[in-house]
């Protein structure tokens, strides 16, 4: 196999380079909640209010890189080249889901499926995880410059930013 050295070295370099991609949500974070006997998904915005997928002005502060927000969404080609297929058809600000845009709590929600695969069952109380009100995890996994962490830039932004319509403050037990 004459390509073996090339493949070996390329694979080695790839391993050394590491991987930034995250395919699964952190297991310790609850993705479902039980409210008055009914199981529902935890709104992503509870934790990710300032993440790259939800209004995401802080993404620029964390990475110096605006993520998808750096693109002009009025561009004819935005959907074709930029919007993930697992995101809803109307992009940010919509109540999109990881499953591909189904309504919140819909049966095909892959977030729910992922949670169930981890051993949860519908109707059971979700395990307690990181509190949404705690130190929010940015898209990189690092503590983002959220208002609670004292970033002045973040505070200014948040203060001037209206609360997204999709954010739901569901009471929890």
């Amino acid at each position, binding site marked *: 196999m004459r390509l073996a050295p090339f493949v070996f070295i390329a694979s080695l370099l*790839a391993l050394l380079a590491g991987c930034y991609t995250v*395919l699964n949500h952190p297991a310790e974070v609850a993705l479902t909640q039980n409210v008055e006997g009914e199981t529902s998904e935890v709104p992503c915005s509870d934790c990710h209010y300032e993440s790259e997928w939800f209004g995401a002005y802080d993404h620029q502060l964390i*990475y110096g890189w605006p993520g998808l927000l750096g693109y002009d969404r009025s561009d004819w080609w935005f959907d*074709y080249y930029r919007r993930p*297929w697992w995101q809803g058809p109307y992009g940010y600000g919509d109540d999109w889901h990881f499953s591909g845009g189904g309504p919140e709590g819909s049966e095909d929600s892959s977030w729910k499926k992922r949670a169930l695969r981890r051993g949860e069952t519908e109707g059971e109380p979700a395990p307690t995880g990181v509190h949404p009100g705690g130190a929010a995890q940015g898209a990189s996994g690092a503590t983002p410059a959220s208002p609670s962490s004292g970033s002045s830039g973040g505070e200014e932004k948040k203060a001037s930013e209206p609360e997204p319509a999709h954010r739901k403050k569901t009471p929890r037990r």
Partner: protein
Amino acid sequence: MKHLIVGLVLLFGTAVAACASGHPYTELEIPVPELTGTHARALGMGGAHIAVAEDASALTWNPAGLANIRRIEISASLGRGDRSVETVWHGTSADWGEVGNQLGGLHFLYPFPAYRGSLVLGIGVDRLQDYALHYKRSGVDPDVSFFGGGPGLLTDTHERDGKLSGYSAAIAWDAGPRLSFGGTLTYLRGSMYDEQTFFTEDVYAQDASYVSFEDYYLLDAKISGFTATAGFLYKASPRVRFGGVLGAPRYLSFDRYELYRTRDRFENGTEEITYEEIPIYDDEEITFPYWIGFGVSVAAPGAIVAADIRHTDWREIKDEIGSRRVLLRPYYRDGTSFSIGAEGILPFAPLRVRAGYRYDPAPFNLTYIPFDGEDVIDVGRDPAEIDIAIDRERQFLSFGAGYLFDRVLAIDVAYQMGRLERVSKDPSRAPYREERSSDELILSVGYRF
């Protein structure tokens, strides 16, 4: 395929060597890997796509570009090529070309849903190389005696068909918020049908016995092999990207059937034909060298400008026939090509227009070789050979456009025209010049779910 060369030198040498003074040594020119037009967007930008690739073209241009893809994609492309060669030999011109249609590629890309970063798999089949060649040279060498002490009309033709397809699997992922890596493994499979005819005719009716001599050589080969590429893409800012690609050697194995035939025609109307199958050598293995490429792209509002540079040391081509190595190094050269392209994104419609330019020096040093020269297969270049210099390096101009239907269906079209001119450094001893031209039209259709 290089057995073709060996066969020609050995057989042609014994059959005709004593009769002719020389000819341009085109038989040594191997069809080397080229930037192919299997993706209209890339071709429309002159091939400047290493830092741009964000569709199935990434499979061949830069696999790291797959990490940019966020939607499931199925795409296909069709091509139409018109290639011709015009030669002038001993003051006589000949022109031969052909138009052909072909399936350029078929691809499927799947980006995994990711909470962060990107992981994309891609598979595809691409026509990586089109072996089609229609070459003809014809002329009377006044210094050579063929028939009864006089010259004859020499007509050499080289007709080749075939293709090389690549069945690729690729993966790309984000190694950082700005950095992506990718790799492609490609299994190569194809075929080649190659005919060369060397025809000498007694046009001046000088010989009492012979009318013409003909030497015919056939190569029918099945080709298999593999190669790989690895690349990176770095997003320096939302508007600036850098990319790099390293291409592994392209290894090809030729499983050949060969035939040599002579046909002598006589004044009395009869002819004598002799056939010889040539199982002289084992299968042939050709290894094309590593190549490396870098690209940069800058996106301004309403436009993208990109540039690529690629380097291949073609002198490193290795050709082994059985245990015998063909000395090709003197006939190939270092090659650095560059491309520059631009894409305009129109604001009033889902339409993009493109243009590009590519400077891509031909890797082959054509020479004019005397028939009574040495066997270059074993000893390398004959000192008596005369260079046929590049008069105008191979250059391509391209144009293209893409339209997006209903946010999911993109149709791209590109047109590329290329030219190459060679002229002898010593026209008195090697009276030859040639001009090669190619016109390609590519249509790509991509559907994103």
